[in-house]
């Protein structure tokens, strides 16, 4: 009997202990991301920093593969009711997740509900509205934000006796000299992102109807005018004259020849900065993405690429509060500055940018500032971004047609006609899936 009593009291004590620890335990939140390699390590550092900074919440980052795989995993988990609190979704997937009404809680709401101050003006220009809805409410919290810039091999330009070009007209003048000096003058790593989406922004040109798609997916169609067609005719001409190198759709395949010193100038992401500085053995620098001076109103800023963090719906208030407090931590100037320095992605708030400036970071590494300066160039009507569904496939269509164009299987006119036809069909299909 005595024995039984002892056991019973132990059980009771254990149960009490259990409840008491539960009530003091940190709330767990999960963060699914697509940051591999060095970037993944920095993500873990951020999570550890947050967990160490407070006791109420505990965040666990989980690496889910590529951007596409992460989005697909998040969607599958949502359908099974097992979604993470925070899901990282890339630029091309933004319309999918924002279009699914009820899948996410807007970042702005989650911060305001938790009583954390939010002012969209705190965020730098090119970042501010990319993941916002048509009313300007921020839906996704911009995370790793980058923009296409021009990297150049300082030795190569010196050898050819030229300066880095500001415009494509200037490029056409200096390219033959670089070729003579034994270099492929130019390469780029992402034709849809750099020569299509950001081409539109850099020249302040409309990309799609319905306010670039922000006003709803119904009847949104792609808009391709003369400037972009002329640009691709010029690029094809450069390729044929040996002034431009095209190495396929893969990002790395196009960056490698620049890293090896064969290509003099390369258009890539401002987020590539950290990687290049660790790889190349020649002095390099960077400048803005060139534009065509001949296009009226050109020279406007670009918008961000990369990805944002979305707070998934269907979670408890406690967990949502933790998400808000994590977002607050993430956007603090110290964390943003650390992220900027470690990875090359731009800081997303003005305060973090000021901190980097004050710290003298750009005096020692001026090239690291190019991305953020380009994002804060004066904007225009068409520079805040785009919002189109099934955009992953639309980019695939672009890559296919551009690839055909580069290998001479199609013409500029036919390529854009096909992109418009296939792209608009995808947009129409997407509009039907969401019914808005």
């Amino acid at each position, binding site marked *: 009997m005595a024995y039984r009593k002892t056991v019973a009291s132990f059980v009771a004590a254990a149960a009490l202990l259990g409840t008491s620890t539960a009530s003091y335990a940190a709330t767990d939140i999960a963060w699914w991301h697509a940051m591999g390699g060095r970037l993944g390590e920095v993500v873990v550092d951020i999570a550890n920093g947050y967990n160490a900074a407070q006791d109420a919440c505990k965040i666990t980052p989980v690496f889910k593969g590529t951007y596409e795989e992460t989005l697909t995993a998040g969607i599958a988990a949502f359908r099974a009711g097992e979604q993470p609190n925070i899901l990282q979704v890339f630029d091309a997937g933004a319309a999918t997740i924002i279009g699914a009404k009820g*899948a996410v809680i807007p970042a702005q709401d989650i911060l305001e509900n938790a009583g954390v101050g939010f002012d969209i003006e705190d965020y730098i220009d090119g970042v501010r509205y990319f993941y916002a809805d048509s009313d300007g409410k921020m839906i996704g919290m911009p995370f790793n934000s980058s923009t296409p810039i021009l990297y150049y091999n300082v030795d190569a330009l010196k050898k050819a006796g030229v300066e880095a070009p500001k415009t494509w007209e200037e490029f056409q003048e200096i390219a033959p000299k670089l070729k003579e000096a034994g270099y492929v003058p130019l390469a780029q790593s992402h034709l849809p992102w750099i020569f299509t989406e950001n081409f539109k922004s850099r020249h302040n040109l409309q990309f799609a109807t319905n306010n670039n798609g922000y006003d709803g997916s119904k009847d949104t169609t792609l808009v391709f005018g003369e400037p972009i067609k002329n640009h691709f005719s010029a690029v094809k001409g450069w390729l044929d004259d040996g002034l431009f190198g095209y190495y396929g*759709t893969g990002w790395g395949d196009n960056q490698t020849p620049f890293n090896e010193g064969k290509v003099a100038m390369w258009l890539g992401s401002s987020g590539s900065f950290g990687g290049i500085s660790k790889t190349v053995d020649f002095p390099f620098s960077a400048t803005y993405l060139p534009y065509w001076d001949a296009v009226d109103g050109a020279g406007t800023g670009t918008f961000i690429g990369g990805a944002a963090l979305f707070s998934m719906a269907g979670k408890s208030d406690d967990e949502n509060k933790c998400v808000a407090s994590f977002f607050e931590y993430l956007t603090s100037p110290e964390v943003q500055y650390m992220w900027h320095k470690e990875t090359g992605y731009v800081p997303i708030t003005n305060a973090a940018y000021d901190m980097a400036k004050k710290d003298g970071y750009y005096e020692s590494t001026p090239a690291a500032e190019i991305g953020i300066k380009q994002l804060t160039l004066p904007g225009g009507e068409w520079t805040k971004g785009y919002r189109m569904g099934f955009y992953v496939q639309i980019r695939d269509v672009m890559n296919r047609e551009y690839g055909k164009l580069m290998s001479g299987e199609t013409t500029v006119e036919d390529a854009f006609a096909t992109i418009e036809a296939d792209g608009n069909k995808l947009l129409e299909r997407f509009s039907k*899936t969401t019914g808005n």
Partner: protein
Amino acid sequence: MVPYMLLLPQLAIVTIFFLWPAAEAIQSSFYLEDPFGFGSTFVGLDNFTDMLTSTDYGRVARFTAVFTFFVTFLSLGFALLLAVKADKVLRGASTYKTLLMWVYAVAPPVAGLIGVLLFDQHVGPMVDLFAMFGWKMQIGVNYFDTSFAMIVTAVWKQIPVNFIFFLSGLQGISKSVQEAASIDCRSGFRRFWTVTFPLLAPTGFFLLIINITYAFFDTFGIVDVIVKNEPGNNPVTLVYKVYLDGFRGNDLGGSSAQSVILMALVFILTIIQFRLIERRVHYT
């Protein structure tokens, strides 16, 4: 009742893993579905017409046909040649056989990775080799070059399986038949085509089906690694396109419609094979 009970586990597996997903695929091929599952709209045959009228689908289907033909034909041909030669080796036979078979253990994505390394446009040794003959290969840029690399990798990966089967098939042919044949005919070449080859037909027929299925479905890993998850202007197979649209692009309806077509295709292929070809195969 007992026989049915004994069949039950097998039937359950078939139902859960094959029939149910197939039914789901057929159903969702008639709907346009929001990826998050908030709603779906019945669109009738729209998914099928959209797919068949898209500029890309025909190109992918044509490539799949060409790819399947070359992979099947070349991997069967090379394997048969190697098996016939290995069958005649007397000394160190097991070493030869092991050397020819080990590739079988390589997983398709790893095979694809080896292919990528060999054919890389910047550092690939195969590219350097072909450059000596004046062929400037550009995998990922040139459609033909990329197809070539894919076919070579897929064939290389498949030869060992065929080799093992052909070799055991050859060893199963009775010595007395072969001896009788060699009395009748002195030409080894003719003996092979008139005696050995017909006797190998059951093995060959089985391998033909296995290889077509391999080229259609199992080469997924190789295609994925060679195109580096970026289809671009590269050749892809029908199965890979199902993945691209469904899992990369979150177009569930369109992707389901494609898998339904693929299912029908395999169904027809199997019927043709068993109805027409099998009649000409003699099982001894």
